[in-house]
């Protein structure tokens, strides 16, 4: 690990030197991008001693490094580098969850770190190290893989290939802290097709992942070694007058347990994947079409994911569903200068879950509307409305699920000014009604939320100071529960050191009260300071403190905590 830091330091110093020379010497070589280091401290002091009701939410100390220069050699050759890494593993979810000590290969493939280099010559790109590649919506796009590959685009054709590891083998450990563990997973992905920017894109995508069953000595308990292969065809076309259409169809073959025997009666796609007893095969499809113009859009989107569809490139994709959405945006009401005063964005859609199961199908309805009007130079109004409904039959319960949520938000803003100050006053009212049916009793709970927010922002034209103030009232009410929140917040910003520095401070007081319990008090103060040390070097510091004192709603009464957070870092910018 130390060798990596040393090597990076040498490379960084060389690039800084090269950067300085490139500024003055030659146009054949240039560098852009940034590099930096930051340190974050987190502190938590809880009282009474021994009380653990509030848990830490950041690592106590963490160093983060970023090194992302792009070196340009002449007109056609460039080397973008993307290194981002931290010293301490903090994985909570996913295969590395709970890991405290990592070896070199685990460090390199841990999702918290990225080490990528992508040398590019004209239409040929070499992809080395960590890459988050997005081929399409149904093949791959959500996983980071450490390996090697290429992206070639001769003329209107493209050929992409990448292979590597998305996770190293990690043994299950009972803890504490418990390490979930993972099998080493190797990935392959490829794409071949023809595309022309703004005209069309037709291609095939292939994605495969396979776990190495021998990569762990103490296997994970809640997962078996898996193998998956997905093949997709995608097509996109853009027509005259803003019309467009896109389609993708995909087939997945997925083995949930590689340790079970091979089975010739199960789905296979040789030589890419061979069927085992637990192998399943299913399909997914997506279609979208619409029209986009400067002043209005209209579009429709359909998506079907089969119950057995699983692609290694989207491990959290929810299967067994059918979604359709209709959305629109338009401008209306021209003013004297020809600009539109009104903007409306709306969408309506439905999602059906459990499509494969006729008796237990669940349905969701989603509708959104956002309507903005600038009446004149002083006054504007934004109104938004969201409706959401979810319904499912009872199954083993006497009553089915029925949840309905309605949210209305009204936000008028008024500005006025004189020679010295521009004033902005904004009011925001939100009303939310959430109905939830108890599946055992059939009783419907009405959950109502009201919130009011008043914001005042004066901008002084002749003074180097920019304050803002806001006051908020929030109330959430259920039959046997009531939460009230009042927040007052004030902030102030200024520049210093001949405008090389920016300082902003904010203070916030929160009063919260649940039912008839004694209220809780909370004070948060934060400050941010940016200072330009030179033309290329910036120093940023952020400090915040959060003091929370409970009333008597929890035991022990009057418990309190003080949370403190300091982040400071330097960023060096390559190039002009």
């Amino acid at each position, binding site marked *: 690990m130390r060798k990596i830091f040393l090597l990076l330091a040498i490379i960084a110093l060389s690039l800084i030197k090269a950067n300085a020379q490139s500024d003055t010497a030659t146009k054949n070589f240039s560098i852009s991008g940034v590099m930096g280091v930051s340190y974050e401290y987190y502190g938590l002091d809880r009282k009474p001693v021994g009380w653990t009701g509030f*848990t830490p*939410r950041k*690592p106590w100390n963490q160093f983060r490094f*970023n090194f992302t220069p792009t070196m340009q050699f002449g007109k056609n050759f460039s080397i973008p580098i993307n290194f981002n890494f931290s010293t301490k593993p903090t994985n*909570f*979810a*996913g295969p590395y969850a709970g890991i405290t000590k990592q070896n070199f290969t685990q460090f390199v493939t841990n999702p*918290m770190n990225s080490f990528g280099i992508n040398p590019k010559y004209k239409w040929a790109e070499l992809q080395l190290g960590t890459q*988050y590649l997005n081929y399409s919506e149904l093949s791959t796009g959500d996983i*980071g893989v450490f390996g090697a590959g290429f992206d070639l685009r001769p003329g209107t054709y493209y050929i992409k290939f990448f292979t590597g590891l998305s996770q190293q083998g990690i043994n299950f450990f009972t803890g504490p802290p418990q390490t979930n563990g993972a099998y080493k997973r190797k990935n392959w992905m490829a794409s071949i097709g023809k595309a022309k920017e703004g005209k069309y894109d037709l291609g095939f995508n292939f994605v495969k992942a396979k776990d190495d069953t021998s990569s762990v000595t103490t296997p994970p308990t*809640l*997962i*078996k070694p898996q193998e998956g292969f997905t093949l997709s065809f995608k097509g996109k076309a853009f027509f005259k007058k803003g019309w467009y259409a896109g389609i993708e169809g995909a087939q997945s073959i*997925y083995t949930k347990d590689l340790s079970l*025997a091979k089975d010739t009666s199960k789905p296979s796609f040789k030589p890419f994947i061979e069927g085992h*007893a*637990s192998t*399943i*095969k*299913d399909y997914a499809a997506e279609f979208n079409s619409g029209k986009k113009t400067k002043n209005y859009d209209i579009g429709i989107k359909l998506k079907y994911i*089969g119950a*057995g569809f699983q692609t290694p490139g989207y491990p*959290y*994709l*929810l299967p*067994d569903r059918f979604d359709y959405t209709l959305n629109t945006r338009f401008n209306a009401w021209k003013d004297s200068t020809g600009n539109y005063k009104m903007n409306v964005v709306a969408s309506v859609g439905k*999602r059906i*879950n459990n499509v*494969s199961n006729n*008796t*237990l199908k*669940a349905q*969701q309805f*989603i509708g959104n509307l956002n309507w903005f009007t600038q009446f004149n130079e002083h006054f504007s109004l934004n109104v938004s409305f969201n409706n*959401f409904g*979810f319904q*499912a*039959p009872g199954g*083993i*319960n006497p009553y089915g*699920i029925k949840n309905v*949520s309605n949210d209305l938000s009204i936000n008028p803003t008024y500005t006025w000014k004189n020679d010295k100050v521009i004033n902005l006053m904004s009011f*925001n009212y939100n009303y*939310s009604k959430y109905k939830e049916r108890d599946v055992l009793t059939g009783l419907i709970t009405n959950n109502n939320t009201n919130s009011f927010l008043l914001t005042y922002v004066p901008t002084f034209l002749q003074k180097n100071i920019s304050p*803002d103030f806001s006051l*908020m009232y*929030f109330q959430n009410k259920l039959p046997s529960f009531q*939460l009230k*929140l009042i*927040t007052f917040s004030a902030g102030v910003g200024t520049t210093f050191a001949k405008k090389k520095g920016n*300082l902003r401070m*904010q203070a916030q007081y*929160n009063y919260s009260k649940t039912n008839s319990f004694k209220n809780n008090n909370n004070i*948060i103060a*934060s*400050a941010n300071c940016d200072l330009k040390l030179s033309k290329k070097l910036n120093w940023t510091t*952020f400090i915040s403190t*959060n003091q929370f004192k409970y009333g008597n709603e929890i035991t022990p009464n009057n418990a309190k905590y003080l*949370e403190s*957070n300091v982040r400071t870092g330097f960023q060096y910018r390559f190039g002009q």
Partner: protein
Amino acid sequence: MKKIFLAIIILLSAFNTDAQLSTNLVLSANPPGSLFDWGLKKEILSYVVVNQSGAVDRFLIKAEIKLTDGTVIGNNNLAKAQLLSLGGASRVFSASDVIPMDNMIFSGKYKTSLDKTGKLPAGTYQLCVRIVLPGTYQPISEERCRIFNLAAYQLPIPISPLNEQVLKPELAQSAITFRWTPVSPIPNYPVTYRLLVFEVLENQKPMQALKSNMPLLNKDVIGTTQYIWQPQLGWADLEAKNKTRAFVWTLQCLDNMNQPIIDGNVNGDGISEPIIFYVGKEKN
């Protein structure tokens, strides 16, 4: 705890003394929808065999999955079944011994459903198990049957904040209301929804943040599908730089044993498809 559980099962099984082997079958009434996942947790299926006489050396387990009217829809292939032995006075067999999925034969629409989804169609079934002798398949224990309900559980879908929604900092600094759909259909135990919020740091992809950061919020909510979070985070840097801060949120569903609900995704962690939201200035 496990030892007590085992002792109770063995004691219960000792009441049956008609056959050469006494047995007991313990099966969760609502096991995971995918039969391939039954072997992941011991509490889903346990088959206890007690050899009181000591006469039986080797045997096979015969398993049949039936509809409630007794129609057999799947069984293990005894000709290829693994020869088992007790290795002592008693032994507890798990799902991978009783219904080894690489030796189960299903028919008709049940085979089609398994090949496509890994699950049987939702409904009520019964599992019947007994011990037989190798070769002759002569029964040497009583048949034990247990009824179970299979449902294709779906993990919750985060609904509020919406995907890629931008929240005003002045509102978000006090309270952010999270809502989600319940596990569907609702199981017969209260589901614990572990609400997780991660900050997406600079230079991070949302999925990287989910898999590598400590959660800013890690709150267990039992039974209900709403939580109001008071973030208690300083926003001075947000205002100073006039930028948005990205967050990713999801839910991890836990059963009544505080174990992840393993239906719903292939990761076995009960984590829903994550959603991204921002705090800061509205995007133009």
